[in-house]
């Protein structure tokens, strides 16, 4: 299925002789050199990406990186100097004014950093603005606007004015206004940038919750990497109008493309980027029936593990540590010790999606953490030292280390080093 939104070879030059600048760019001149030579400013260069339906695509960068210019080209507020922007196959970059108006009314809506609510209209009229422009009649407008306000929890304020609301509430109205026309694509230009940190976090969570039901295609601009990591299915990092790296949060944090990106990711909380899935490995297990402590010891020695899980059918019975199993086996002499005698039944478990930051407590037990799926089947095991290794590893840039997983460097003695750290784990 073709992507919902495709951006192809898009350039934006500010100035009155864009062709000149494009030629110099093709030659390979830098942004500063071109400005000195021609007085033209490169806003965006060589933008190429696509967004699938239902995805949140986050564009990240510092001020002046071109991200605001880029998002405004997506709904035609700024026309690109060259390139194509395809929404469901229609090229926004070169379409007529009527076509553009139609697309803006029906397919795409925008939420702004400073809310951009009309101060002379009530909250309800603000939310209904897009509908009024489309020509929806008053009663229907009212109903749909109220529904949108309901979604953001502000239906009670329908007859108030924007001046009566706090920043967070105003932005929620902005969001309601964007949702009221039921667009397929939502453009969000640093929507939470003007809000204080606690409200910002609440809004991010609200957006994710809404997205679960609404499944809009969202292009989200921010300069806050933590926000990007939290919200983005895919993240693009921009610098000087160019895309420096595009990928998932884990890709960018594990393998920053250059020093610029590396500097960005240096300060983020890696515990919130990676999940149990990223550091788990396929578990070696021992069946409960007819196993002895000696069997467990043998398995652990073969695979170089400190502990192993014991399965009763496809449910977890418990875990056995090498120390305890080996000691019991030694003391019993020639006779076999049934595995039940050394079984630890109080073991740590987690979901695959749990962030590493939430695993510190369980990691401190010293036992490997069982990763279970929704049906409580064992899908993987997380060694405690890998949790900390993943969080604390030094950043390797693509130029210095070829794709070596960080866990391999930090914990060579565990068997986990031999297993790739980020496989998707099926149920056993």
């Amino acid at each position, binding site marked *: 299925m073709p992507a919902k939104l495709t951006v192809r070879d898009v350039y934006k030059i500010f100035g009155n002789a864009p062709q000149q600048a494009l030629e110099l760019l093709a030659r390979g001149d830098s942004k500063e050199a071109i400005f000195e030579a021609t007085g033209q400013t490169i806003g965006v260069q060589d933008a190429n990406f696509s967004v699938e339906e239902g995805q949140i695509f986050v564009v990240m960068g510092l001020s002046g990186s071109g991200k605001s210019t880029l998002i405004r080209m997506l*709904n035609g*507020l700024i026309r690109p100097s060259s390139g194509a922007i395809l929404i469901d196959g229609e090229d926004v970059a070169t379409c007529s004014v009527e076509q*553009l*108006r*139609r*697309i*803006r*009314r*029906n397919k795409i*809506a*925008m939420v*702004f950093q*400073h809310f*951009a609510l*009309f*101060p*002379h209209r009530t909250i309800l009229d603000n939310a209904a*603005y*897009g509908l*009024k*422009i*489309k020509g929806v009649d008053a009663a229907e407008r009212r109903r749909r606007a109220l529904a949108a306000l309901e979604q953001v929890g502000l239906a009670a*304020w329908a007859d*108030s004015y924007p*001046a*009566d*609301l*706090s920043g967070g*509430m105003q932005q929620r109205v902005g969001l309601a*206004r964007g949702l009221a*026309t039921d667009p397929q694509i939502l*453009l969000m230009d640093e929507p939470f940038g003007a809000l204080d940190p606690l409200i910002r976090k609440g809004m991010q969570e609200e957006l994710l919750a809404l997205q679960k039901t609404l499944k809009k295609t969202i292009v989200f601009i921010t300069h806050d990497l933590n926000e990007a990591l939290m919200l983005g299915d895919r993240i693009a990092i921009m610098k000087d109008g160019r895309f420096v790296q595009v990928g998932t949060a884990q890709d960018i944090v594990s393998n920053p493309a250059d020093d610029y990106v590396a500097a960005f990711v240096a300060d983020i909380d890696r515990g919130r980027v990676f999940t149990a899935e990223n550091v788990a490995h396929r578990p070696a297990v021992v069946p409960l029936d007819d196993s002895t402590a000696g069997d467990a010891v043998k398995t652990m020695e073969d695979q170089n593990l400190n502990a192993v899980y014991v399965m009763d059918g496809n449910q977890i019975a418990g875990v056995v540590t090498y120390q305890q199993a080996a000691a019991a086996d030694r003391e019993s002499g020639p006779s076999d010790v049934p595995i039940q005698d050394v079984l630890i039944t109080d073991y740590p478990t987690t979901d695959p999606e749990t962030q590493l930051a939430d695993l510190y407590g369980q990691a401190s037990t010293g036992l490997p953490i069982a990763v279970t799926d929704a049906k409580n089947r064992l899908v993987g095991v997380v060694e405690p030292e890998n949790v900390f290794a993943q969080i604390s590893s030094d950043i390797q840039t693509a130029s210095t280390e070829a794709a070596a997983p960080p866990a391999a460097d930090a914990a060579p003695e565990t068997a986990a080093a031999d297993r790739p750290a980020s496989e998707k784990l099926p149920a056993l």
Partner: protein
Amino acid sequence: MSPSDLLIIPFDDWVNALVRDWLVPNLRPLFRAMQVPITLVLNGLDDFFAFVPMLATTLVLALLAWRYAGRGTAIFTVLGLCFIDLIDLWPETMTTLAMILTAVLFCAVIGIPAGILSARSNLAWKIVRPILDIMQTIPSFVYLVPIVMLFGVGMAPGIIATIIFALPPIIRLTNLGIRNVREDLVEAAESFGSTPLQMLVEVQFPLALRTIMAGLNQTLMLALSMVVIAALIGAGGLGLVVNTGLGRLDVGGATAGGVGIVILAIILDRITQGLGEKNRVPTVSLREAIVSLFRPRGSVAPAEPGKAG
């Protein structure tokens, strides 16, 4: 040595030739036609104000003043208008009122669209602005003569002169008001697919209204200041009273006319300023009310609407 040693341009002859020999014979019908709507509106208003009894008019104006400008202005309105009646200048004042309203109406009808056009098009503004500059700096006496030549003498020509004099503020402030609407609001309106007309009606005009009303207020004041000059070319009302007093060196008569103009000016000024303000002036004590008449506008702080958490 200066350019005038080489050449003297007969500018005055050229203007004479233009107006007398070309403009008047060729476009006289057009100019006569232009007077028709003005005369219609003027006569309508004049008859109306002559018909309505003095107390009714006073009451309506006082209520308007109370609603839009506060109790103090309302009281002043009643006292002032009664005084005008007591000095036997009521009919002339009503004539002047009709003239002013006609002039302001036509200024609004011409000026607001011109201002909107200038706001949307840099080219239009480039053309309009120097014309406004000329209109505002040229002494009004200078265009009285061509007006008489083209339109004759009487009320309508007086109003036309007033319109020319009073038009610039409304155009300038409409242009300013619309250009000054917050850019991000215009961007938001555009991003939802508004046509230029929708944007004007829904966003730009309502938000520029305050500035436009200020422009209207200024236009009104300029129109009032033209009443005496308009009387020179045949307009009636209080301007004529002042003029007559001037001609006969009748200080008392001229002063009476002048006082009438001032009272009318204050009342209309306060009401139209109040129309432009979003916050109504809260009713205060009588002492405060009289003091507020003399305080500069905008220094009364309205009550803060309750802020949400």
